[in-house]
């Protein structure tokens, strides 16, 4: 695949800075570069100076040696340690932000499989090896894999996250410059690993709206999820007001669920998915484990639609 942007042959020192975290991370890089260069120049300078001044043939009087060295030792040890703690603190703060998406972010689902990326927008628009995103608006990627571990890496945004089968990983960004940027698979995923490249296309908001309309499908993720909810027979037990055979799903997402073994879990994406694929693993208190497993019957894409539908169920929807 050719690069998604114009490039000039030669040394490619200029990595685009195209999102909020690219700016904050580059500040850290500049600090690290300055600090590393300073230490390296110090080490190299001392080595070179000593090598010349104290070469064996030099008649220079060596005088007396330092005898009490522990002040020096304590000095450079604590200076190093304090510098390191500062770096740790700075990097940690940016890191925590990178993987805690704000609630208002646009949620785009990304599925990796050997060897392609599939993306699905909230309105049901699907694309392969390309993700269109608006600028100046937080975008959250909810990512999973169908087979092996992949990794969504977007160098221009300074972001990267492993994508694991059986899990949903999150990251978010606010792109700020329209353009096309590489999306690399960064985790070895088999012989097609280096071909698993795509692009992220950042567009102005009007352009993005136009793109959504051109590629829009009549039904969105939630509506498709509702259709599947009926098609797979989920509605028979979980739908309507029936709470006899199965618990109601209204307002379930992110709420605490008491389990039959006495523990409580928060109904996150992983819990919902597990409950569909392996319903006997975590049974809700006071219900019998009668639900059949849907493992192998529901594709990853369909699961996402179902999850989108379940998440959309407020407490007023079903009742």
């Amino acid at each position: 695949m050719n690069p998604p942007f114009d490039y000039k042959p030669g040394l490619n020192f200029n990595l685009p800075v195209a999102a909020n975290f690219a700016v904050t991370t580059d500040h850290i890089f500049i600090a690290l570069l300055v600090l590393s260069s300073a230490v390296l120049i110090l080490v190299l300078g001392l080595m070179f100076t000593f090598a010349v001044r104290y070469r064996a043939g030099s008649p220079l009087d060596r005088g007396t040696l330092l005898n009490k060295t522990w002040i020096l030792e304590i000095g450079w040890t604590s200076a190093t340690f304090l510098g390191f703690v500062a770096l740790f603190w700075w990097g940690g703060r940016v890191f925590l932000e990178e993987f805690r998406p704000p609630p208002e972010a646009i949620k785009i689902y990304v599925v990796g499989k050997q060897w392609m990326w599939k993306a699905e927008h909230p309105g049901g628009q699907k694309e392969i090896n390309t993700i269109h995103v608006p600028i100046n608006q937080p975008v959250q990627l909810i990512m999973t894999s169908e087979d092996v571990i992949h990794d969504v890496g977007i160098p221009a945004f300074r972001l990267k996250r492993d994508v694991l089968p059986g899990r949903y990983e999150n990251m978010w960004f606010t792109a700020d410059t329209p353009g096309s940027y590489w999306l690399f698979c960064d985790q070895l995923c088999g012989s097609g690993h280096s071909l698993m490249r795509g692009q992220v296309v950042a567009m102005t908001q009007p352009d993005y709206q136009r793109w959504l309309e051109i590629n829009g499908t009549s039904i969105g993720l939630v509506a498709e999820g509702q259709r599947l909810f009926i098609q797979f027979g989920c509605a028979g037990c979980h739908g309507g007001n029936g709470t006899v055979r199965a618990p109601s799903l209204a307002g379930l997402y992110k709420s605490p669920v008491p389990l039959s073994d006495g523990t409580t879990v928060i109904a996150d994406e992983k819990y919902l998915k597990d409950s569909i694929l392996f319903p006997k693993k975590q049974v809700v208190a006071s219900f019998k484990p009668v639900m059949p497993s849907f493992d192998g019957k529901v594709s990853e894409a369909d699961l996402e639609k179902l999850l989108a539908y379940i998440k959309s169920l407020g407490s007023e929807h079903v009742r």
Partner: protein
Amino acid sequence: MSTTTTVEARKVEESYLSDKFTLASWLVTYDHKRIAILYMISITFFFFAGSIAAAIIRWDLIVPEGMLKDPETYNRMFSIHGMMMVWFFLVPSIPTTLGNFLIPLMIGSRDVAFPKINLMSWYIFVIAGCVAFYATFVGGIDAGWTFYPTLSTGYSNSFIKVAAAAIFLVGFSSIASGVNFMVTIHRMRAPGMYWHRLPVFIWSHYAVSVIYVLATPMLAMTMVMLFFQRQFGVGMFDPQLGGDLVLYQHMFWFYSHPAVYIMILPGFGVISEIIPCFCHRKLFGYEFVVWSSIAIAVIGFFAWGHHMFIAGISLYSGLIFSLMSYVVAVPSAIKVFNWIGTMHKGFIRFDAPMLYALGFVLLFAIGGLTGLWLANLAADVHLHDTYFVIAHFHYIMVGGMVSALFGGLHFWWPKITGRLYPEMWGRAAALIIFLGFTMTFAPQFILGYTGMPRRYATYPPEYQVLNVLSSAGASILALGYLLPMVYLPWSLFRGPRAPANPWDATGLEWQTASPPPSVNFITTPIVTTKPYNYQEPEVLEQQRQNG
């Protein structure tokens, strides 16, 4: 009676090399010095096997679309390179060769504590090496040396099980060496060789032995679980069967991160011997250098998660592992400052071992400083799994450890073989290796920062210039490695005979003949001073005036 005395007298006069010349006298020897030579020949073989794979990797990456045209072959090449270099070259490199040879000599002992176990560990190593060679070269491994599931368990049609068996097996040779060294250092020191009179080389090997013994069993368990998953479908790492993918990575790095210190600590030991000798100075801050090795061995066990910041571990454990990674970097920094302190007011000579040592300090400093970049959470998110990581750990492993191995090999070559190597060629090789190395790996830092992912058989064209530069550097590096392979064997036959102490060095190993007799010391040495007791300038000056 008199016959016995003559035989014994002859035995002490003869060197360990001239004891007997039969093949059997080598293959069933209990002499730690001969076992060290056996190890040296075997790891040289595996080093070349791994190097050939590396050469093919660099050849492939000359053009963006890949010279090999076959990504499967490319994956096999970097898997060969990783497996051979990590488990069959770097992990055993200095401890089983220089360590095996020098530990008893440096502490004034006749042999290691368990000579038969020492020989056994070599046989296990060779058998495991043959299995690994079969798995990688004949069968083929395409999942990298890290074998992450589910790629290695469900999606790879290669010889994963055989490779897992080889790694399981080679672990026993590490554990045997580790136990052997620890007991030797505890129980077999010469009279007066108190703990704080031990050379740093011994302390480093003590620290390494602790890691060998404590970490290797974890790797063995991981490999057994991997084997069971592929063979019997026991899904400990398979989310489909209720297992956990990330568990594998935790277990794997719990060994493989301390293994990084297995690979570099012996290098610290070698450098801490060479620098005082060629500066004619006592080691600056001996206690700090010693205890920083122990600190690395301990703290090194709590930093494994920095390989997994973006792998799906919780954000808070990411914070802890980042902090621990910074903490474990402090003792390494202490060492670098102390080596430079040793040069202060010294009488510095620039023979080949010292050139390697200076190269080590510089390259290790760069590798260590870029480690700070990767320990930084936000920076690591961008740099992880890119060529930046490749460059970083090659600076430590090749720029650091291989420089230390070559430096040590030249330093103790007269002691080991009884011959002097040609000094001019030694210095030339040290410079060529330094230049070739820098040209190969410095561009990879830039490649990584600009985003080029690792393990890519093909790549976007904007990365080509730096890749070509790197491949060109690799060919210079190869030349640098081939030179010692020519002049060192040459010196075995044509080199001038070495005196007992050609470098004017302290240390018990220099007090016996070169090469040492089979019994190491004819009379048990008695230690009365601290190590690195190099004479004061005035004394040296007096000696110089006298002659």
